[in-house]
C-alpha cells in the first residue's frame, strides 16, 4: 500500500511536469539567464554551464567548466539530470547539493518549475 502510494505520488509529480508550458518556461528562464545560456552557439563566458540539452544529460559534464567539488561529488552519486532530480535541485539548490556555488535560492512554485523544465526540454542540441 505504501509503495502504491509512492508510485501514485511519482506519477502525479510527472503529470505536473508534463503539463509545463515551454512558452511560459522561457520567461521563468530569466531566473537563470544571467549565468546560463540555452544557445548552442553562445560565445560569452558565463558563470554557469550551458543548459542546452540539460534534461537527461550527465551531471557536471561540460568540458572545461569548473564545477564545484560539491556538484562533482553529487554527479558521482546521481549520474544524470533526470527531470525529477532537476526539479528537486531548482526547488532548493543548497538543500539538494550543500555547498553548491550556485547562488540561487530556488523556485518555490511547482508550476513555474514545470514550465521551466518544459522549456529546457525544447533546447536540445
Amino acid at each position, binding site marked *: 500500500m505504501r509503495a502504491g502510494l509512492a508510485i501514485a505520488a511519482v506519477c502525479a509529480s510527472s503529470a505536473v511536469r508534463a503539463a509545463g508550458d515551454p512558452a511560459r518556461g522561457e*520567461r521563468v528562464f*530569466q*531566473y537563470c*539567464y*544571467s*549565468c546560463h545560456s540555452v544557445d548552442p552557439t553562445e560565445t*560569452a*563566458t*558565463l*558563470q554557469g554551464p550551458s543548459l542546452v540539452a540539460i534534461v537527461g544529460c550527465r551531471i557536471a559534464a561540460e568540458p572545461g567548466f569548473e564545477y*564545484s*567539488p*560539491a556538484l562533482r561529488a553529487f554527479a558521482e552519486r546521481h549520474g544524470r539530470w533526470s527531470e525529477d532530480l532537476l526539479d528537486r535541485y531548482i526547488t532548493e539548490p*543548497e538543500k539538494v547539493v550543500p*555547498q553548491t*556555488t550556485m*547562488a540561487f*535560492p530556488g523556485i*518555490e512554485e511547482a508550476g513555474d518549475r514545470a514550465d521551466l523544465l518544459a522549456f529546457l526540454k525544447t533546447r536540445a542540441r
Partner: protein
Amino acid sequence: MRVHPCFLGAAAVLAALAVPATAQQVQVYQLPPGSYPHDVAPAPDGKIWYAAQKHGAIGIFDPKTGQSREVKLGPKSAPHGVIHGPDGAAWLTDGGQNAIVRFDPKTEEIKVWKLPEDTGYTNLNTAAFDRDGVHWFTGQNGIYGRLDPKSGEVKVFKAPKGRGPYGIASTPDGEVYYVSLAGSFLGKIDRATGETKVIEPPTPNQGARRVWSDSQGRLWVSEWNSGNLSMHDPKDGSWKTWKLPGEKPRTYAVYVDERDIVWTTDWGADAVVSFDPKTEKFASYPMSAKGANVRQILGRPGEVWFPESGTERLMVIRTGETQ
C-alpha cells in the same frame, strides 16, 4: 605571507586569534542555519547587517554579544546586496522581490520600491549612492538603474553588452562606476543622462566582478576569469594589473579600506588576500573552512568584514582601533 588559520569550535562565538606579525586579529562568528549571508555591511550602531538571502531577510549581528536576529523583507524576498545608506538605513537589492528595499534600523520599517512591471526579472545585484543621494543599482540580467529616494522614481537602463552588470561603487567625489561580469568591462555612469561609458580593462574576457574606489578615486576591479586584481585611474586613463598569488586564483570580491589597503577574496585558494599598493605585496589569510565562498567585503575603520556564504559565518579582520 600566510597567516595562521582560525581554530573553529562549536560555540556560537569563536575565540579571537591574534596574529602578532601584523598586529591583526581574525574572528569568526557562526550564524543561524540557513541564513546564507551573501553580502554584509557595518551598521552605524556598531552592529553588522547581512543579506540573509535564503531567509528573505536582513540579518542583524551584534559583535558584542555574538547574537543575531533577522527581519523578513517581504514575500519571495531573496536579497543579494546590502549597503549602509547616507540616511543611516540599510538598503538591499532584493532579487526575489525584484525591488530595492530600505530597512530603517530605528523603527524597523521596511519600504519596498518594485522595479517597473515591464522590466521583468532582473537578478538585482548591488547598489551604491552618488553624491546627490541617488541610489544606483545593477541587475545581472543586463540592466542598471536609479532610484531617487526623495521622489520614489525608479528608472531602469539597458546595459551595454547585455547581461553581466554586477558590482557597483561610488568614488569619494560621488561618481558611480559598475562592472560587468559577462561583459568584462568597467562602466562609468553619466548621472545626468544615465548612459554608460564603457572602459575596457587591458585583459580581454577578464570577468570584472566587483569594483571599489580608493581614497584617490582610483577604481579597483576583481577579475574572476583572469584571477587578476586591476586598478584604473580615471585621472589619466591608465590601468595596472596584478595576478593574485597561487596556482589558479579566482578573484571574487574587492574592497579598499580607510588606509587604501585593497582586500580581495580568492575562491581558488579559499583565502582572503590583501594588497598594499605602495609595496605591491600581497598577504593571504585563510578563510574559516574550505568552500567558505566569500562573495563580498565591506568594512569600517579598523575592521574588514567577510560574509562566508558557504559556511554561514561572518569573519572579521581587525586592522586597528575601531572608530
